[in-house]
Structures are given as structure tokens and as C-alpha cells.
């Protein structure tokens, strides 16, 4: 009894933190979502998602998040694999180099992309210098996706790298010993055994990409309205907290849904290919 009391006592600060910073705000959001201006009960804030504008934003968000996740996976897996296979003693340092950008201010990094991608920016200067036509990708879906890939890539690399590090070298050697060439070993052994890392990476990229609004604000310039932007505007410009909360709840449901789908994949796919 004493032990139990002591451990729960030690957890108290955390419990208070969760209560004040997570649970309470959630109830407030739910409260706003289910009421109208006058304070009366309504479901209209939740059903507002069926508005054509909101549906379009939600669909656009899902599309951008999906494409971002796929591109991150395609880039991150080879990078993680190369990092893992590096035959140097200071592997930790190289991994650190990949995480380093995460320590820089998020806004600063995105602003840098704004300058690179602008019509008279670095990218177009380089393109015209080598005689290629310039491109206008700032304030398009492409720019937003590019910014998200850049931002979220480390969150895909790290879990995959960790998963690869946990694979016993002898298991890979055993596959070669039994006649498997590099590709067969990769498909039948390495990928299935790093599945947990792939799933973590997908969740860690897809979820923030789905709800992000800063990247689309800066690189989308108000022309690319993700559901995150719509919610932000409801809170800041329109001052309609009820509608913003309602849409937030819907977005949250989508996030939980996508996570549970990924967990289902994790359980059911025993050794099969992912994605």
C-alpha cells in the first residue's frame, strides 16, 4: 500500500500537467464545438465539415499529407539504410547531422524556403544561369509539399534508422548464407524487420502534416488552404471559436482514424510488404 501511494505521489506532477494542459483544453474544445454563439447545444459546428469549402480543404490536407509521407519514406529509407551500413566509428555524429536542422527555428527554415523558391529567388537564379526556364512554384501545392517534406524528413529517418540498427547482423548474413542475393535479402528480411520503424515514421510524418498550417501559410501564401489553415483562421480572423473547435474535433477524428489504420496494418501484416 505504502509503495503504491508513493509511486502515485511521484506521478502527481505529471498528472496535474496532463490535466491542466491536455485534458482540460480538450474539454473546452469539445464544449465550444458543441455550442453556438448564444451557448446553446448544436451539432452544426461538427457538420460544418460537409461545406464544400471545408471538404475541399480537408481533402487537400489529406492529399498533401499523403504525398509528403510517401516522398519522405522514399527518401528516408535509403538514407537510413546508408547510415546504418556506414563503416565508420563515428556513426552517431553523422546521424546527429541529420537531426541538426530540427534544432533550428521552424519558422526560420520555412522562411528560407520562401526565399529560395520565390520568383526571383535562388532556385530560379540557378535555373536561368544554366539556361533552363524558370519555375513558379512558390504559393502552390508543390511548395507546401516540398516544405513539409523538408521539415518532417528527420522524423521518418530516425525511427527507420533505429529499426535497422536493431536488426541482428547475423540474420542478414543468414539470408545470404541461404542463397539470397542483396535484393531478396532486402525485400524478405530487411524491410519486414524494419516495419515498426516504417510505421512509426509514417505516423510521425502523416499526423503533423495533416494538421499543419504554418508551412502552408508561408509557402502557400493563402492560396493553399489546408484544413489547418481554415481552423486557424476561424480562431484568429473570424473569431468563431465554436466553428474552429468543431473542425478541430473532426480533424482529430481523422488523425485517430489514420493511426488506428496504421496499427491494424502493424498487427495483421506479418512479414508482408508495406504501403
Amino acid at each position: 500500500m505504502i509503495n503504491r501511494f508513493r509511486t502515485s505521489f511521484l506521478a502527481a506532477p505529471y498528472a496535474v500537467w496532463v490535466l491542466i494542459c491536455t485534458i482540460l483544453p480538450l474539454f473546452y474544445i469539445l464544449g465550444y464545438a458543441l455550442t453556438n454563439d448564444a451557448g446553446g447545444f448544436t451539432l452544426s459546428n461538427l457538420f460544418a465539415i460537409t461545406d464544400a469549402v471545408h471538404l475541399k480543404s480537408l481533402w487537400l490536407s489529406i492529399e498533401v499529407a499523403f504525398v509528403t509521407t510517401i516522398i519522405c519514406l522514399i527518401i528516408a529509407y535509403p538514407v537510413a539504410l546508408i547510415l546504418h551500413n556506414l563503416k565508420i566509428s563515428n556513426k552517431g555524429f553523422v546521424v546527429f547531422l541529420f537531426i541538426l536542422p530540427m534544432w533550428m527555428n521552424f519558422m526560420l527554415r520555412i522562411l528560407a524556403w520562401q526565399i529560395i523558391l520565390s520568383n526571383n529567388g535562388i532556385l530560379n537564379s540557378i535555373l536561368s544561369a544554366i539556361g533552363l526556364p524558370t519555375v513558379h512554384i512558390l504559393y502552390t501545392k508543390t511548395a507546401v509539399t516540398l516544405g513539409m517534406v523538408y521539415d518532417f524528413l528527420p522524423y521518418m529517418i530516425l525511427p527507420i534508422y533505429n529499426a535497422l540498427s536493431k536488426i541482428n547482423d547475423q540474420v542478414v548474413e543468414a539470408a545470404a548464407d541461404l542463397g539470397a542475393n542483396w535484393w531478396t535479402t532486402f525485400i524478405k528480411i530487411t524491410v519486414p524487420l524494419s516495419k515498426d520503424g516504417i510505421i512509426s515514421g509514417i505516423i510521425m510524418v502523416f499526423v503533423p502534416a495533416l494538421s499543419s498550417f504554418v508551412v502552408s501559410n508561408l509557402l502557400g501564401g493563402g492560396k493553399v488552404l489546408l484544413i489547418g489553415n481554415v481552423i486557424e483562421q476561424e480562431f484568429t480572423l473570424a473569431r468563431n471559436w465554436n466553428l474552429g473547435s468543431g473542425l478541430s474535433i473532426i480533424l482529430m477524428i481523422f488523425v485517430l482514424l489514420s493511426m488506428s489504420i496504421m496499427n491494424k496494418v502493424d498487427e495483421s501484416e506479418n512479414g508482408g510488404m508495406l504501403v
Partner: protein
Amino acid sequence: MEFIQFDHVSKSYDKQLVLDELDLYIKENTFVTLLGPSGCGKTTTLRLLGGFEKPDSGRIYLNGNDITALPANLRPINTVFQKYALFPHMTIEENIAFGLNIQKKSKEYINDKIKYALKLVNLDGFEKRSIDSLSGGQQQRIAIARAIVNEPKVLLLDEPLGALDLKLRQNMQYELMKIKQELGITFLYVTHDQEEALTMSDTIVVMNQGYIQQIGSPEDIYNEPENAFVADFIGESNIIEGIMIKDELVSFLGVQVPCVDKGFGTMKPVDVVIRPEDVELGYPGKGFMDGVITDCLFKGVHYELDVQCGEYEWLVHTTKYFEVGQKVSLNVIPFNIQIMNKPESEDEEVMKEDD
């Protein structure tokens, strides 16, 4: 040319020489054990044959073909790894079928092979089980089954019993010998456990610091160690510096004792090796020297005694109990005194450093 041949094979890691100009010949259908302390190069030798490492210099031949540059997946050789290295995301059946699927064998052939292999390792009916549900000993049996279904010409075993407890290890030793007989292929076994090596092998290759110390049958290695390292590594020994006075007479610890060795010359410094079970204890004055029992430990089959004779403390195994402090005489029949040359070259010197 022999079945397996290492021809002047050298290998180093980070400038540390692990194998130096190794020459090794292995006959077909023998059970050969590479035996030595950690860092002696035995595992590297195995990995070179398996194709997991490339030699810095030298060639490796299998059945007359140069396989030095052949990658592991193209060698007709399979390996049983130390930590089993089973595929954790596959069932037992899928693990065993892995190599056969790559060879694109028919479904019936694969199923027959799985049945046969599981029977051979005494795990019939385990097809659908997962790897996690198996004990260490069972996992090692599956690893053996997974390797042998491919009908390799050589089976490499890298300390496969190291992680098992004593009783299980002994059972597995007999099973491995049985499997070897049934398959009729060459086994190359790596271990640091001398008992394992003596029990199972047709030929033992004793290695130390990248050099082969002695190659021979278990009986040869145990009874006629060629140098002090082998004598010390295989079983326990009394190794005493002595002088070969003339043929069949050696002097050590201040006494002259008859032996059966010849051809060392006269007044030549040698190492004298006497196994603890070959020392006979008697009443004081009845042997070639007297001593006092300083320690007596019960070891099950025998007592392990320390007998102090002047400066030297003998290790003696007897089946009789002796009191600590008791005065005894020591005697050894000439046949059980093993005389060895002292190391002369640098290569040989290595053999003693590792003690």
C-alpha cells in the same frame, strides 16, 4: 588437391593481424573442429569459408575450385550461427523453406524436406509454430534444419552450443554427431570448449593468435600435445621446464626421471608436460620426489589436489582422498611423461604468450 584448402590466407581488422599466412587442408566428409581461445582466428577462418569476409591475401579452394571471390549466397556452404539468427518474422516452416524457395524448388519437394529436417532434429510437427515459442535449444535445432535442407557440401557451425546449458549441450553434441553421420557431409565446427572438440571431432585444429598450433585426432591432441600452448589449452597439465640429459632421460625440479622420448639431443632445454591424472601418489620416499598436500577439492569423479614440492606446486587428480598436510611421494610412469621442444622461432613464441 584437398576438398577444402586455405592457401596462404591472411586477414587483418584495423591493422590487427588475425590470420597470418594460414594453410589448412580439410578432407571431405570429416568433422573438423577449430579450437582455440577467443581472438585466435578460428571464427575468422570460418567466416572466410562462409564468404562473409574476404581475405587480404591468399586463396581459398573448395573441391578444386577457387571460391575466394565468390559471394556467400553462391557458395554451396551453409552456416549454423552462434545466436541461431533465425528470421523472427517467419514461422519455423518459412525459416526452413527460405533457402529452398530461393532455389525455386517445387512445393512438394520443400514440404518433404521440411518434414525430413524436422524429424532429423527431433522437432516433428513444429512447422507452424513461431520462433518466439521455442527454447534456445529448439531454436538451435531449427537453425541446423534450416541449413541442412539445402544439402550443402560443407556445414559451418560457429559455437552453436555456446548459449545452451551443460546438459543440453552434451545432448546436442551426440545429436550433431548423429546428424553428421546421417548426412555424410563435411562439418567445420568452431569452439573454445575443448570437451566439445574432443567429443565430436575427427580432426581438431588448435589455433592461437592466428597460427595453427597443432592438427590431429582428439587422441593425438590430448596425449601428444606438440607444444606448451596445446598442452595447457587441452585439459589441465603440469608444464615444467626441464633439461633433456640424453635419450630417455629428462631432468626437472632437481631430479632425473626416465621417459620414452628420443632424438632431442643431449643437455637440451625442454618443456615437460604431465597430465594431473597421470601423477601417482604414494608413501613418502617411494617416488621420484616427495611433497605435501596443500589443497584437496572434491570434483565428483575425482579429487583435485595441490601438492607442494619445493618451489613447484603440482596439480594431481586422484580417486582417493588425501588430508591437507599429508606427506606423499609422486611418481609418473615413463610413458606418461611428454617432452616438448621449447619455442624457438617467433611464430612458436606466440604460442606461450597467450597463457
